[in-house]
């Protein structure tokens, strides 16, 4: 394997991870206030189709991403209203909403299948850096969205651990009663972050149709929402580990192509399941290491509806 090929492989892996990275960072914020939006896959699908249609209609990928974000946000708010405000079961509602999203987008998007995107997100080569040997190819010939996505976990870390608001957010996720008696609106902020998470997942979804596969097809997200969901667990709710997790799974997804090009003689189907097998393996590893350390790092109220008193 020559250097140029390795650099291109890394570049592809990073590019492929973008949607997952954006969605996972959003989901991290949601979970930090004690809610898990298990409908993430559905939210991404809604964003993916809306973004694609907007791109086709206006010819602008920026508008496409915005539309994807708005649609994802709206869809997530539905989830939030049902689970956070009405305090119903997050898993049941989440799975139902995924099926709703899958069916609806398939129907509405039928006429867009196999149409090539006209508003593809262009690569933005960073001057000077992109000409560096190896690193230039591997890191600095991505889209703007990918560069911004890399920064998102750092922004999340800053908000969570360096700001007053972040302290209150974490208090909501750890012990909503403590936050409530301090006059923090538990339901309000939970709903707000479900919306923010939906916005980011929607943008991530739109990135898939406008920046990765450049077309729409039913179930185009193909489990990326689930992987993003799992990465938050993998990362142990630590923002910077989201980055590690997303790139790790990006690398797994790209292995299939590498194998084919290199002629490893392994059927490509074997590689397409790698990210999913990898998810399971990593989760087991994590559970095992947590057991050994005796530490639990998830927000203590994660998944529990809030009742006063």
């Amino acid at each position, binding site marked *: 394997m020559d250097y140029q090929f390795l650099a291109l492989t890394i570049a592809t892996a990073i590019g492929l991870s973008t949607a997952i990275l954006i969605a996972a960072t959003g989901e991290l914020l949601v979970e930090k206030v004690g809610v898990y939006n298990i409908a993430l896959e559905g939210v991404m699908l809604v964003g993916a189709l809306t973004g694609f249609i907007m791109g086709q209609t206006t010819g602008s990928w920026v508008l496409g991403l915005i539309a994807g974000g708005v649609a994802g946000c709206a869809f997530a708010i539905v989830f939030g209203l049902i689970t956070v405000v009405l305090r119903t079961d997050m898993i049941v509602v989440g799975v139902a909403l995924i099926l709703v999203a899958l069916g609806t987008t398939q129907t509405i998007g039928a006429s867009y299948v196999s149409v090539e995107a006209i508003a593809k997100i262009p690569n933005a080569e960073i001057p000077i850096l992109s000409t560096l040997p190896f690193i230039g190819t591997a890191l600095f010939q991505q889209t703007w969205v990918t560069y911004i996505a890399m920064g998102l976990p750092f922004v999340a870390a800053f908000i969570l651990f360096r*700001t007053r608001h972040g302290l209150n957010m974490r208090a909501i996720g750890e012990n909503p009663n403590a936050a*409530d008696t301090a006059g923090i609106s538990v339901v309000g902020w939970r709903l707000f972050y479900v919306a923010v998470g939906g916005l980011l997942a929607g943008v991530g979804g739109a990135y898939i149709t406008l920046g990765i596969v450049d077309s729409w097809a039913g179930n185009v997200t193909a489990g990326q929402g689930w992987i993003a969901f799992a990465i938050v667990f993998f990362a142990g709710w630590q923002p910077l580990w989201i980055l590690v997790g997303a790139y790790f799974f990006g690398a797994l997804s790209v292995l299939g192509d590498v194998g084919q090009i290199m002629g490893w003689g392994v059927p490509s189907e074997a590689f397409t399941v790698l990210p999913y097998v990898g998810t399971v393996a990593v989760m087991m590893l994590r559970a095992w290491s947590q057991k050994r350390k005796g530490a639990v790092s998830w927000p203590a109220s994660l998944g529990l509806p809030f009742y006063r008193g």
Partner: protein
Amino acid sequence: MAVVTDGGGVSLELTGIVKRFGDLTAVSGFDISFAPGQVHALLGENGAGKSTLMNVAAGFLTPDVGEIVVGGQQVLFGSPKDAIDAGIGMVHQHFSLVEQFTVAQNLAIGARDIGKLISSKELNTRAADIGEKYGLGVNPSKVVGSLSVGEKQRVEILRTLSRGAKVLILDEPTAVLTPEESEQLCLNLRAMAEAGATIIFISHKLNEVLSVADHVSVMRGGVLVDSLERSRCDLESLAKSMFEDFGTSAEKPRSSSSASSVGEEVLAVRGIRARDDRGAVALKGLSLNVHAREIVGLVGVAGNGQQELEQIVAGIRKPDDGTVSIHGTQVDNVQDALKAGLGYIPEDRRGTGLVPAQPIWLNSILRIYKKDLVSKGLIIKTRKAKEYARDLAELVNLSTNDVTTLVQHLSGGNAQKLLAGRELSGDKSAVVAVNPTQGLDVKAAAAVRERLLQARDDGLAVLLISADLDEVVLLSDRIVVLYEGSVVGEFEGQHADLDEIGRLMGGESRDERP
């Protein structure tokens, strides 16, 4: 002690508060007022309505009828935040602290007097200042999860005061504390009252109330039955107002059982090591034994390994190391425990002990359903089972003899009688009882205690795990003190030195006398 109130004190008046839960009227409309500069004790049994009334005053519950007047101004609370803005703060038995946060971070939740960007240094300084202002020492940089219960309570009180509470309500604050911590708390509360704060102290412990309060109000069945200056009340009169039928039950001397009549070893726990659900070490090689015709009382501050021990003995939790045996037969799981004749009265009677949504008769046979008496193969003999249940109901003096009544419709006392009856009847050799009288009224508690003493006299080995030190002293032949997963002291029931037990519970090593 620094000055607690910035201005003058604030009085709290509750007028005609009524609060119902379904059919139950928890508080049924009376007037009570709390003056600044006093510790005002609100005394009553469990279920008397004390906590409900105070939860209304602190904005956790909305009253159905009635008025709240703070410092002469009528107020309406929609949330605890409204109450604290009006100067009323409440410290519950279950603290609402973030265990994963430091003390300083906990004090900063929702605070507006800190910058939008935070640094741990700034938060620590702020927390130290708060501690100094109110005269309660805390270590700002310590993680709350690692603090003792007493320290956590101090953080909780500080947080309430730092939000501007001038009326401080404490719900059974000493229930979770060691005797020494309780004493310190009472000193702190007295000092706060002298500095002008209005302290409301909810309790069902008479002695404690008499030692700390300036004014005592007694509630019973949702109404105010007495409200007196401290100087005008005494133990007996308070007890009389607290319990309608005082005298039948309260402090009955335990039936005599001299140490010599204790039989052979029945329950043997050897070198148990175990972890809790989160993987932290809970039991560090604990050993103890209980003989026939003996009640061994295990005391300790909650969370020192009692729960893990209880579950291991009952066979529902696996230890990392060590054995439990009954009459020499090792117990590894629930079936072993049942076969060996172990009764188990868990603390969570409606969750672990009984199935509330099922009738009395099914609950009665829950642990013997495999026996020929009530079943044949896979089939339950319904008629036989109901007969069995009726006998049991009669034996334990249940309020109803209709065994098709769902357990969820039984009162706490009756549910516990049923559970204790079930676990003590049949061919039993040992029993583990955990806080068996918690939450019961005096009569039901006495009945359950009587059953345990009866079981002991019938030759059972009784392991009593209780947070109620008085109860343990009342019933036990031998008292074992648990601290951080180890036995740190053992006393003869008759000669137990309460102060010493309290010190050991708090983690002080046993006095080393020359």
